[in-house]
């Protein structure tokens, strides 16, 4: 299942504004990679470039290469819809479809992909909800709207929705920033389980979280307001947090700025 991602020379723009400059990074399959850095450093932008979600913002575009197991997802014959089916995404704020039931939220991606057989949908919904550690909490109310769940449950519902289409890679954009500590712990445990199956990239503001869940950590920074964000350092998480080689990284992780 899981695939590697190889980014080279990535520039990301919002209109004329260069938000991220020349990012090159290799992400291993079946690992958790954390993107950390101060606000505005472009870590979310890089994440959104990995499944072509960056370009859905009007005026936004990307230069450079993003290879998914060797194939450029920005290649001329690549349909972004297929890219997003292969590389799933979980967002900062839980965003289940409010008019859909829990069941249909999870089944939404499959139905779009053309699966309508009830038994098959039921299997996938159960498997995905179990995978997201939510099954036991919701199995008796699958027909209730997803908006009725707590924030943490909603986020796990969104993870279930993302893994239901069996992606190769799972991108998470600050998935715990809107959640309380207990829900955060549940998501972190889940990330640990999911990494045996998926390649996971997580953007986080929380350095302890990066240290807890990730195998590798990438630190992004900006030189100043209006300057493009850059990848400063990328290494094993233990190295980044114990003996970073770059001074900026050290200052950031010791809490001197950011």
């Amino acid at each position, binding site marked *: 299942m899981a695939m590697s991602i190889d980014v080279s020379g990535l520039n990301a723009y919002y209109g004329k504004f260069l938000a991220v400059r020349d990012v090159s990074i290799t992400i291993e399959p079946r690992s958790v990679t954390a993107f950390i850095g101060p606000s505005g450093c472009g870590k979310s932008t890089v994440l959104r470039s990995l*499944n072509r*979600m960056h370009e*859905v913002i*009007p005026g936004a575009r990307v230069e450079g290469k993003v290879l998914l197991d060797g194939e450029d997802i920005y290649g001329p014959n690549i349909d972004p*819809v*297929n890219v*997003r*089916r292969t590389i*799933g*995404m979980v*967002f900062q*704020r839980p*965003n*289940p*479809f*409010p*008019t*859909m039931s829990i069941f249909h939220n999870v089944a*939404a*991606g499959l139905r*779009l*992909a053309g699966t309508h057989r009830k038994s098959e949908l039921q299997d996938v919904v159960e498997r995905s909800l179990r995978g997201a550690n939510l099954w036991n909490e919701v199995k008796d109310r699958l027909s209730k709207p997803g908006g009725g769940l707590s924030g943490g449950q909603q986020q796990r519902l*969104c993870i279930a*929705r*993302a893994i*239901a*289409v069996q992606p190769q890679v799972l991108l998470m954009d600050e998935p715990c920033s809107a959640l309380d500590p207990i829900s955060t712990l549940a998501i972190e445990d889940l990330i640990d389980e999911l990494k045996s199956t998926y390649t996971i990239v997580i953007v986080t503001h929380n350095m302890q979280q990066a240290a807890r869940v990730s195998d590798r950590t990438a630190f992004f920074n900006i030189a100043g307001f209006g300057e493009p964000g850059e990848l400063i350092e990328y290494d094993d998480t233990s190295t980044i947090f114990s003996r970073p080689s770059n001074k900026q990284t050290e200052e950031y992780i010791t809490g001197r700025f950011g």
Partner: protein
Amino acid sequence: MTATRVPRRDHAVATRRSSFSAGDRVFRAVSVTAATVVLVAMAAIAVFLVIRSVPAIRQDTTNFLTTRAWLPEEARPIFGIAALLFHTVVTSALAMIIAVPVAVGVALFTTFYAPRRLSAGLGYLVDLLAAVPSVIYGLWGFFFLAPNITGLTLWLSRWLGWTGIVHYRLNNTPNNLSDLTAGVVLAIMILPIVSSITREVFRQVPRDQVEAALAIGATRWEMIRTAVLPFGRSGVVSAAILGLGRALGETLAVAIILAPAYTISVHLTEGGGITFASNIALKYSEASELGIGALLGSGLCLFAITLGVNFGAQLLIRRRKEA
């Protein structure tokens, strides 16, 4: 605030509070007055209609609801709303059937498909349609659309002829000044209001819903179906109801296109007809005391229909939300 520790400051906070609440009181008074004025105006219209129309309807020698004639000036007054109701409902329903899908399409195109510049220009053009006076629409319908609608009529009668609602008599002189033509003109007239409200509703669709759909591999149309339409449904219904209100009440355009005829025919393509509003506009200037009362009675019916439609739509929206 450390106000509790220093009594004087506490006092200062209290005075400031009261000035805030003065602002609150003014705002409250203004909004309550505004709301009351609307309700009073509605009630005043209803009461006026009832008071003036009930005596007239009492003098009607036939059934006011089922009679297809409007002769209140006769020695034995005969008048009823059956034909008015029929043509009002038929032309407005036609207008809705045509306008709502087109309006939703225009709104979707301008919000999700068109490049930004084109979208702004197109939105502006559609809004401009609302600024055209209804007499222009009426004249356009009479002089341009009616002579040119034969093709549509033939096409409809070919595919829908079996339903019996359209037929085209080739041996007769084509009379295109029909409910069909009026319905098309009304559709164009209500298009701007339905489409611009729908557009604003679609613009409010939360970005995270759109992205949620795209992230699970939705194409643009699938994204619209999964995220936009469910979110916008109640707004689209409201927009359609506002458009329907305009279609039900439209006077001049209908009066120009439809020659007054108090008949009921299931054929949409039958010439002539009369609606509540066009009947009032055509008759009031030469009506007697009784005639005015009769016209106001028909107005009361239109008023009730509009209220009923609005109420029904609210129910529809609420039920959808609960489901």
